Structure formats: C-alpha cells, structure tokens
C-alpha cells in the first residue's frame, strides 16, 4: 500500500475557535475512507483544507509525497464534490461535465470531439447517457448528484473528496447511490474521502472509518471495529446505537448508576469509573418486571413508551431512571416482535460481556 494523502498535525482556527486541532490522517491509494462526525466537529473544514479552499494555520499536507502548501485548489489534482452539488444552472448536463475539460487554465481540451468522447464516457459510467442535453433544473436530485460526480471524475483526479454527498437525497436514493459510488470506484480505482454525519453511511461506504470529534480524530479503524469496539464513549455516542449510562466505580466490583449497579464486562475493566457504561441496542432482552434474571445477567427496570417498526428490525423505547430514554432493537430475523403495554414496567437485561465501559 502506498500513501497518497498524508495529513500531519493540521490545525485550523476560525476567529480563535479551534476547528481542527492538530489532526493527522493518512489515505492509501484506492482506499475509501469515510469520515464520520457530528455537525461542528470540523469534518467539512478538513475537506476544505485538503481541497485547498482554506489554508491551515499549522501542519502539513502531502499529496503523493509532495507538499501542497501554497498550491492553489485547482492545481492539486483533487476533485471536490460539495454538499449542494454546485452545478451550473444555466448550462446543460453535458456542458456541466465538460466545463473542466474546456475551461481549465492548464492544458484545456480544444478538440470538441475529444471533449464529447470523454464526457459521454463519463455520463455513461454514472448512468446518465441519455440526459446530456437536459438542463440542470430538469433532472432529479439523484441525477444531479451523478452529474456532480461525473464533472469531477472527468478530469481524472487522484483523490475525490465528497462533502456529505448523499445528504440531499432521500433514503431510497441514498442506498442506491451508495452502491453506485462503490461500483464507480472499483471501475476507476480512485481514492475517495467521504465526509458524513450519518453513521450508517460511514460504516457502509468506508474501507476504514475515521471518527472526528472536536477537531481531532477519535478513532480510525475498519467499520467492524468502530461499530463493535468504539474507542471512546463519545465515539459510541456518534454511532447512535448504544444506551449510555453515566456512573462510578462501586465498592463491590460493580459499576454504579444511580441506585442500580452492573457487573463489569471483564475483570480488567473493574475499577474504571467514574465513567460511561454502554450497551448496544440490539444486545438487550426485554423481560417482564417479575421475571428473575438469568445467572450473571445485568439489568435495569424501565417503563415502556412506544415502538417503531422499520422492516427488518423493530425498536422499543423505554424510560429508565431520571427520564432517560433507553432503546432496544430486535432484529426480526432472530427474534419475534413482542407486544408490550405502554406505561408498564419491564426489565431490560443483557449479559455484561456484551457491554463496554469507558472512563
């Protein structure tokens, strides 16, 4: 593996506020890195600094071994697809895609036949072969996304940066575009860096997922590791699939949350605290309040509020101590949906080995 993009200790301030705080990340050739972070975590800033639209206040960025300091955006060989697609509304789909080839300062393509060949090839690749003559206002959101991508791809960039590319699309289109993006990438062998606030998108798209928190990388790992072993409580929170309990270390080798206490997941975790105890939504079993827990099981009492059916799974919402909302997810291929009566108390049980504790 060769490193194509090397970001080292990049810091960026906005009016004295830290947007990027000494952030470092490496991208391998032909890798798909998804960058997950809540809004305000600095993810768009990072993309803009890499693309060259913003200057970093400290740190280095190397592209294929060479520093890009002082190199303007369009000479970096980086394609950038912005959130709103930024298509030129007054010219056709074809002319949008051809824009870079025709109008770039360095080595523009003068031969219109050549332009047409390359543009049509690219429109074909993104599945818009017949729509070249359409105006930008005559195509759908998903098609705009593809045009934006084709416009960037046609210039043969080394890296493509995608800023929340699927954010403006509805759920159905998102899923299809995810598959499209994968296919295009496999066909072209380009390195992608994809910024998103959506944890599912990040996990689904990335060869590796980088989790950004307050201008720093909280974790960089493959999606499986990020999902099952988040590096910190904050990463777990971004993944939006863990119930989190704030608490402290108790006297009896237990983690105390209010007046409840849970066994530690493993002996080496013991004595962590004060900290956060995390249990994934789908690792919890709901039992009647009167039922005795199985040996070794941990649990809390909670009141059922409502449920939400989403096809392959169903999510139950409970209210625990201190009005805390707890979620339980049943994957319906493994478990039968259950009827709970709103307002009644139940036991939420899990085996401590499935839980995670962070200080």
């Amino acid at each position: 593996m060769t490193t194509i993009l090397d970001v080292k200790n990049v810091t960026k301030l906005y009016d004295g506020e830290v947007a990027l705080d000494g952030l470092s990340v490496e991208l391998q050739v032909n890798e798909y890195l998804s960058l997950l972070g809540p809004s305000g975590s600095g993810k768009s800033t990072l993309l803009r600094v890499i693309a060259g639209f913003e200057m970093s206040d400290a740190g280095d960025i190397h592209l294929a071994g060479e520093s890009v300091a002082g190199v303007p955006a369009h000479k970096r060989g980086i394609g950038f697809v912005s959130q709103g697609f930024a298509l030129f509304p007054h010219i056709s789909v074809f002319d949008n895609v051809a824009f870079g080839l025709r109008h770039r300062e360095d080595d523009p393509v003068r031969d219109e036949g050549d332009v047409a060949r390359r543009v049509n090839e690219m429109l074909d690749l993104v599945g818009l072969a017949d729509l070249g003559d359409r105006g930008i206002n005559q195509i759908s959101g998903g098609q705009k996304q593809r045009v934006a991508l084709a416009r960037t791809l046609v210039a043969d960039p080394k890296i493509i940066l995608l800023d929340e590319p699927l954010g403006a699309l509805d759920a159905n289109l998102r899923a299809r575009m995810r598959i499209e993006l994968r296919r295009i990438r496999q066909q072209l062998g380009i390195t992608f860096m994809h910024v998103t606030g959506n944890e599912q998108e990040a996990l689904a798209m990335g060869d590796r997922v980088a989790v950004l928190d307050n201008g720093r990388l909280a974790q960089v790992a493959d999606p499986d590791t990020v999902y099952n072993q988040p590096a910190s409580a904050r990463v777990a929170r971004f993944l939006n699939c863990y119930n989190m309990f704030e608490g402290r270390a108790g006297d009896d080798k237990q983690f105390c949350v209010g007046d409840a206490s849970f066994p530690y997941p493993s002996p080496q975790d013991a004595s962590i605290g004060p900290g956060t105890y995390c249990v994934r939504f789908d690792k919890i079993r709901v039992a009647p309040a009167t039922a005795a827990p199985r040996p070794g099981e941990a649990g809390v009492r909670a009141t059922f509020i409502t449920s939400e059916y989403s096809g392959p799974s169903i999510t139950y919402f409970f209210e625990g101590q201190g009005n805390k909302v707890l979620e339980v997810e049943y994957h319906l291929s493994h478990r039968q949906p259950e009827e709970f009566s709103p307002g009644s108390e139940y036991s939420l049980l899990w085996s401590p080995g499935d839980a995670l504790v962070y200080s």
Partner: protein
Amino acid sequence: MEEARRRIQGGSGVSAVAGVAAEKKDPRARRITALLVAPGIIWMVLFLVVPMLMMVYVSFWTQKTFTIEPTLTLNSWIAFFSSETYFGALLRTIRIWLIVLAATFFLGYPTALFIGLFIKNKTIQTIVLVLCVVPFWTSFLIRVLAWRPMLGKEGAVNIVLQKIGLISQPIEVLLFTEFSVVIGMTQIYVVFMVGPIAFMLSRIDPSLIEAARDLGASTWRIFRTIIFPLSLPGVVVGAIFVSVMVLGEFATSAALSGRKVNLLGNIIVTQVGSLKWAFAAVVGVMLTAVMAIVVAALLRLADLRKEL
C-alpha cells in the same frame, strides 16, 4: 415612460396568471381566476390600451391653429418624417439612449459586481445599495442643475484642471452639449442598472464559483462562463429600466443642453405647450413604438420568467 414601465410589469403579471389558469381545467377554478384577473384587465384597458389607441387615432386628426378636428389626414406624419428637425430628434434620441445605456452598463456592472459578489455581509450589502440611492433624496431638478456649476465654463471641473495646469483655457464643450446631457443622465440612471444586477449577482451560490475554480478555470473564465450569464437577467431588467426612462427623457436635456439638444420628449413638451395635439400624438406614437421595440429586443436576451 411611466406607462411603458407599467406595461412591462402588468403584461408579465397577466400572462403568468393566464398560465396557471390554463393548467387547471376545473371550470370553477377557471371562473375564480377570471374574477381575480378582471380588475387588472379592466384597469389596463381603460387606462393604457384605450389611451394608446386614442393617441394613434388623434395623430391622424387635422391640426388647426389652436384646435384639432377629427378629420383624418396624414399631414402630421408627413411633417414629422419630412422635417430635418423632428426626424433628427428621433435619431438623436436613439443615439443618446445607446450612449447612456452603454455608460450605465460599464459603470454600473463593476459597481454591482462589487456590491453583489465581493461584499459578503448581507447587511453591509443593503447599506451600500441604500447609499447608491441617497442622491434620490434631493429633487430631480436639483440633481440635474447641480451639474451646471460642475461643468460650466467657470465650473469646478474647469477650475481644477486649470489649477493643476492640465489646460490653460477652460473647456467650453463640457456644458450645454450632448456630452453634458449624457453625463447628467448617466449619473441619474446608473443606479437603476446597479440594483437589478447586484441582486442577481448576490443570488449566485458561492459554491458555484468555488466549483468552477476547483475545475481549473481562471477568474476571467469564471466571470465569462458562470458569473456574467447568471447575472444576465439583472442586466436585462436594468437595461429596460434605463432605456424606458432615457427614451422618454426631456428634463435633463432641457436643463443641461441649454435647449440645444432636442429629444423626442422635448418635442412633445413644446408641441403640447403650443396646443399642437396632433403632432404631439405623432411623436408620442413614434416614441412608444421605439420603446416597444427596445423592450421586446431586450427581453429576448434572457428568459425573465425563469427568474420569477
């Protein structure tokens, strides 16, 4: 000139409503649409279409010394086209209009570019646009007459140039010439060019310019291929404003040319003043025709309906 402007606005309004009506086949909805459109149509017919037809009709009446009689004749029209003075005024009006239009565009576009694109803060943008309108807080006449002490033989411009030593004799052609009329009109009307263009420019999404730059286009290319085409509707609206007002002008030319530069507007004023109604009507019809052609031609340059 007021009439023509109203006609443009009223005209597009009516056709837009008619378009909605055509989409809905429901007879009830159609009746409501007709009811809503009726007052506007009645108003336009009574106060625009009928007066204009009257004007055309009157232009064929017979002119007696102080009265006109409804006996149809071509005399006034023949007088207009055979007279050097009057036909010359038509050509002069068109020439001055073209010069003022060009001057307001070349002065106004850069100004609008600065306001609409380079000032990012919307509040400051509004403040600067309001500053452009400040001259309108004084009366039209004062604004025009203020050019006399500026451009006169012993005016500010000549004094300054003489003090610097650039000229030894005062330049006399500054005032009471076509030049001073053009200067005066440009100063008054340039803001009508700046406003619509600045508005269109401020609506351009900055990410478009960023994208164009990322794709490798130079600043000049970006201006030519992205910024200017997107601001074109503003240019067209500004040009229509300026054209309609300049073509009907008579006050600026009267005040700044010492009555040496006669535009069609000036002729109408004098003819009406000496009760030559039929002849004034001929000039009025000509002026309206010129405006109609100009506005129609300008509207072909950009599809304004898309911008509504």
